[in-house]
């Protein structure tokens, strides 16, 4: 068990590309941290630097109390689960799990005992003498987990471990991995591009974009208080609606919506509205032209335009709608404002007029 500290860790490839701009954060002992971002955002590079598979160009990396920048992967007391599992195809499940221990000169009886324990924990006992090719995707995934568990590492590293599984299995393994991590209490860093995995598994999420950390926070913070339009549109499905609005004389206006704000700012802003914060309201200020209704069973999504800008509305199943014109209002306490050019969050210091009543809140 250990905490992990990154101090201005940076990666520049020999061809001059900066894959990771100086990144600093600390992961607490036993914490489950998810690195999330689109492909090419540097999340895998960051993980691989922590694993020791990639050199660190600048900065310091500590696992526990030791700086491990120059240590070999095998000496960092880590275990890693790979996207394609990286099982040794010519070895049985048992040998695959035992290989790392064997290389550490662990006594044979200890290896046998640990392999059996891990196999029991992962429901692999019946498959120990099979080769990876004879296993299903989910079973291979478990073998990869087993290989990580038996080493009792201080740190688990997961590199998109579920992306090769089908949707159903992915949901199941997601829960299994999370439960296992809870049970073992091992500090874990998990890389994914899937925001659902990030939201559901993480104690804390680190959102990366273009090699830069966009935001660090709990899933709830990330969802409700995105630090930028990038985070707002990346986290959440369907993503936050981002529309162009105007600020003038302490009033924010978008289509028919007029909102008094305690700010002297003026000019264009980007307004962020979560789809579930838009409500059908026959007296609402927003006029929407509904173009498509997506039926999802538990709820529905309306896609359409307001004042020429695309908007998505999340709708409970019991509400009746049809294609065509519709009026909406919104829950103003959840609005987010972003800088129209940089995309950074702007409304940190603002407060919506507190003197409004519940009905007025809906405006």
């Amino acid at each position: 068990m250990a905490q992990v500290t990154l101090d201005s860790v940076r990666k520049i490839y020999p061809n001059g590309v900066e894959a990771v701009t100086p990144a600093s954060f600390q992961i607490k002992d036993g914490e489950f941290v998810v690195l999330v971002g689109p492909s090419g955002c540097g999340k895998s590079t960051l993980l691989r630097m922590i694993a020791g598979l990639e050199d660190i160009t600048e900065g310091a990396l500590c696992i526990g109390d030791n700086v491990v920048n120059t240590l070999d992967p095998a000496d960092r007391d880590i275990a890693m689960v790979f996207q394609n599992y990286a099982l040794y195809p010519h070895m049985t499940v048992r040998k695959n799990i035992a290989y790392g221990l064997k290389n550490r000169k662990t006594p044979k009886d200890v290896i046998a005992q640990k392999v059996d324990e891990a196999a029991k924990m992962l429901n692999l006992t019946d498959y120990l003498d099979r080769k990876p090719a004879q296993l299903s995707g989910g079973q291979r995934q478990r073998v990869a987990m087993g290989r990580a568990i038996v080493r009792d590492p201080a740190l688990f590293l997961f590199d998109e471990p579920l992306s090769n599984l089908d949707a159903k299995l992915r949901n199941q393994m997601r829960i299994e991995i999370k439960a296992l991590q809870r049970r073992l209490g091992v500090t874990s860093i998990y890389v994914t591009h899937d925001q659902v995995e990030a939201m559901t598994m993480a104690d804390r999420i680190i959102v990366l974009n273009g090699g830069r950390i966009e935001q660090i926070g709990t899933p709830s913070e990330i969802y409700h208080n995105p630090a930028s339009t990038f985070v707002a549109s990346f986290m959440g499905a369907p993503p936050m609606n981002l529309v162009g609005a105007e600020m003038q004389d302490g009033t924010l206006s978008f289509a028919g919506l007029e909102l008094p704000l305690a700010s002297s700012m003026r000019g264009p802003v980007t307004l962020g509205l979560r789809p579930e914060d838009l409500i059908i309201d026959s007296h609402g200020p927003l006029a929407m032209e509904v173009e498509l209704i997506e039926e999802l069973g538990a709820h529905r999504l309306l896609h359409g335009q307001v004042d020429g800008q695309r908007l998505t509305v999340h709708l409970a199943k019991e509400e009746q709608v049809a294609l065509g014109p519709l009026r909406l209002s919104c829950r103003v306490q959840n609005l987010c404002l972003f800088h129209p050019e940089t995309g950074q969050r702007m409304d940190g210091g603002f407060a919506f007029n507190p003197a409004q009543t519940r009905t007025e809140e809906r405006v």
Partner: protein
Amino acid sequence: MADISLSAAAPVVPRRRFRWSTVVDHAILITGALIMFLPLLILVQTASTPDVETMKYGPGLYFGDQLDDNFRKALFEASGFSGENTGLAMFKNSMILGLGFAFGKIIIGMMAAYAIVYFRLRFATFAFWLIFTTLLLPLEVRILPSYEITQKLGLLNTYTGLIVPLIASATATFFFRQFFRSVPEELVEAARIDGAGPVKFFIDILVPLSQTMIAAMFIIMFVYGWNQYLWPTMVTTEEGMYTLVRGIKQIVQVLQGGNEIPEYGRANVLAIIAVLPPVAIVIFFQSWFVKGLTESDK
């Protein structure tokens, strides 16, 4: 009831049409197979017929009874002047050339490919070009200087001189490089995290993974080595060093000259022995061989 109505309504299924084109396809294939096979059958026929008959009438339709006798002669009685090149001795030399060439090529190729693919090497690009330029020029175009150098090194009529210059091209290295590059990246990473160093990774993981590829390469290289002609013709002048394929040259020259009855039977047995081992290997390990051959060039 239900099945009665069903059968009443069952549509008439037309019988599968007979296609002349299928017959033509088979006819073409059978003709092709015969053209491949018959010429070699002539070898067997003449090998079983008394030499006098062959000399007079040529290959006939019936097999004779001389096969055993000719085999015995070809294997154990020496032809030529020194009395050293019995069929058995030539068979041994062919084996040494085939196996030595195949093993040498595979071991050296695997080592070099491993160094190129899995290590951070400062002069990697240079080594790569140095090695892969050899793919461009076959031994035949530099045959004389190669001979001169082999001679200077005192390697004429030695197994080293026979085998090593043939190894001086990077086909196997190139092949293993391609294969190693196709091995998933994560495997070496997982192995490093599992505490395996370069030597351990090579022996524990890479070599077992390459088993099929090694087998395929081995077949191709063995056949290639066994069938070498020009180079053995130049570097082996002592009859005791002749391989079977090199021996063909001598057989042919014997057939040509002289007033005696040419020993067709014995000559053809030698040709059969020269063909049999590589053919057997290629047929028995067909799938490996085809895989190796067709994948080596992608």
